[in-house]
């Protein structure tokens, strides 16, 4: 297991819930890999899943994952590819159960084991934790959780690699977790394969960087990439990333031969900087990684070597992701044409706002944007020219009062006949009222969570 000259290949198959459904299939079928990591969770995903579970107790996980596994399970078993995923969301038990059924349907009964990690879900323990003195203050504002306690919909600790390593040690071929950090899905398998000690900071930090590069799928292999994007080959068959890691923690970022996309120093650099805070202080449950120590070398076509990574001791805390009901919102659009498209759109917005005022509705925020002019670069683009060929008015409202937001959605269509002229684009019907799931990041001491983490492994 601990030979020094071999590499472990961890492939990325999903960068978020809703990513390219064919990507994981291509990763398994188009070339050799050892692990397939599937990251389904973003800040808001857990609260969406919690809402689904409240309506259906068997829901609350990334549903796409189960039919995907039914497709690829036989190939994974045959090739010895192990899968690590946080598809479990707020219902990892339900996800694992559905996975076992999918495995049986796919004909791998008796040939594979499923690992299940639970204990990251703090929802049922929230009051107990508060009583014990865990404050769970908002990390950004310092506000106490009591301000929104009644509105909390989900609360999960971001957990690290330890339970993933345990599940792999117990022989799991597929590991399902809840709110694992995105990066642990990559460096967990590496810690298991290479037997890195928990205080081997540099190597684990290198694994975190490998995970950060993997976690957004094709965003490091040419997807959403600015560098000469018009020359990136065959994006319809975009290759997802694979990290080929050595026991010393250095690794090569690449993709399967024959797939589209491009892996270069520049494409990898863009992904390294994605969602970055202080680069010297990238905190994970297992290590603090220093992104200013990363060295990149192009060592071949679509091959970038990453080395030199330094890390430091972990903190005493885990991050907690809390979602709470934060009121209601809706966004409506209408399209205005030349001449004076922008003036008409702004005129319509003013009329709409006056009507809502006259009805006595109050909103926490009303936002007007002109899609086709200022909705992405704001005031940087200056006032719109009179000869703009067309513009889409995009107007959004937010309020604690659902009725106010509901009424707003009924005030868009009337503008077609009761506002400025040459307006179209209302074929989509009334805007939808959306419940806001607001995000409350907090910290909790590790000892309040880690003893509660449970790892089970069962046969398909």
């Amino acid at each position, binding site marked *: 297991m601990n030979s020094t000259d071999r590499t472990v290949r961890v492939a990325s198959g999903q960068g978020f819930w809703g990513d390219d459904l064919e990507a994981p299939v291509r990763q398994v079928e188009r070339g050799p890999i050892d692990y397939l990591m599937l990251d389904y969770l973003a*800040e*808001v995903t857990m*609260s969406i899943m919690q809402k689904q579970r409240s309506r259906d107790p068997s829901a609350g996980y990334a549903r796409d994952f189960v039919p995907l596994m039914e497709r690829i399970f036989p190939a994974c078993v045959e090739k010895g590819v192990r899968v690590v995923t946080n598809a479990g969301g707020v219902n990892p038990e339900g996800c694992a159960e559905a996975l076992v059924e999918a495995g049986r349907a796919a004909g791998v009964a008796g040939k594979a084991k499923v690992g299940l990690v639970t204990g990251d879900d703090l929802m049922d323990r929230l009051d107990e934790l508060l009583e014990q003195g865990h404050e769970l203050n908002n990390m*950004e504002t310092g506000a106490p959780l009591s301000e929104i306690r009644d509105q909390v919909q989900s609360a999960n600790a971001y957990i690290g690699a330890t339970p993933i390593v345990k599940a792999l040690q117990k022989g799991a071929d597929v590991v399902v977790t809840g709110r694992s950090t995105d990066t642990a899905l990559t460096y967990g398998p590496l810690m298991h394969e290479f037997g890195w000690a928990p205080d081997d900071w540099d190597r684990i930090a290198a694994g975190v960087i490998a995970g950060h590069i993997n976690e957004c799928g094709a965003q490091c292999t040419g997807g*959403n990439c*600015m*560098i000469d994007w*018009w020359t990136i080959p065959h994006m319809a068959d975009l290759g997802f990333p694979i990290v080929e890691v050595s026991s010393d923690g250095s690794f090569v970022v690449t993709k399967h031969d024959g797939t589209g996309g491009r892996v270069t120093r*520049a494409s990898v*650099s*863009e*992904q*390294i*900087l*994605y*969602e*970055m*805070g*202080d*680069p*010297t202080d990238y905190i994970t449950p297992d290590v603090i990684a220093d*992104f*200013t*120590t*990363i*060295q*990149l070398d192009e060592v071949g076509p679509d091959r970038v070597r990453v080395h030199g990574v330094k890390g430091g001791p972990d903190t005493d805390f885990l991050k907690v992701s809390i979602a709470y009901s*934060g009121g209601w*919102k809706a*966004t409506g659009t209408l399209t205005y044409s030349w001449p004076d498209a922008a003036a008409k759109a702004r005129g319509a917005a003013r009329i709409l706002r006056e009507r809502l005022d006259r009805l006595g509705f109050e909103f926490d*925020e*009303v*936002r007007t*944007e002109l*899609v086709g002019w200022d*909705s*992405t*670069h*704001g*005031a*940087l683009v200056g006032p719109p020219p009179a000869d703009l060929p067309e513009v889409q008015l*995009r107007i*959004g*409202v*937010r309020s604690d009062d659902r009725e106010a937001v509901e009424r707003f959605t009924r005030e868009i269509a009337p503008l077609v006949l009761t506002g400025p002229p040459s307006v179209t684009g209302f074929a989509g019907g009334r805007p939808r009222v*959306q419940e*806001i*799931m*607001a*995000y409350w*990041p907090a910290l909790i001491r590790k000892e309040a969570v880690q003893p509660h983490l449970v790892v089970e492994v069962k046969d398909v």
Partner: protein
Amino acid sequence: MKRIQLVHLAHARSGDKGDTANVGVIAYDAAHYPLLVEQLTPERVKKHFGPMVKGDVERFELPNLNALNFLLHGALGGGGTMSLMNDAQGKVFSTALLRMEMEVPDEVAKAVAGRGLVPADWEPEVGEYV
């Protein structure tokens, strides 16, 4: 000296953490990284964005990647699902920063002219799917 837009000297990627947008800016050419360090100060970047960024601008240097990372606090209308913005997750704040004007030696301006933009004679491949 000539004034050119940052888009010709650097590429960028942005993302979100709550109500904060981050923009990573990477020099196309390592030789131009010092120009970014010198001119893309937090103060100038804050001024560039004006009312788009309500809070502070923080800057971090990554000389190993010829890159700077900016945190734009209070830029996303509350962030996440709270925001009413079209770009609620700050995905294209990167390009908003690339509009910024830089002062560069004439020969640099000449060397990077057109860099970062689709060439004038480029057309999408016309085939079965177009």
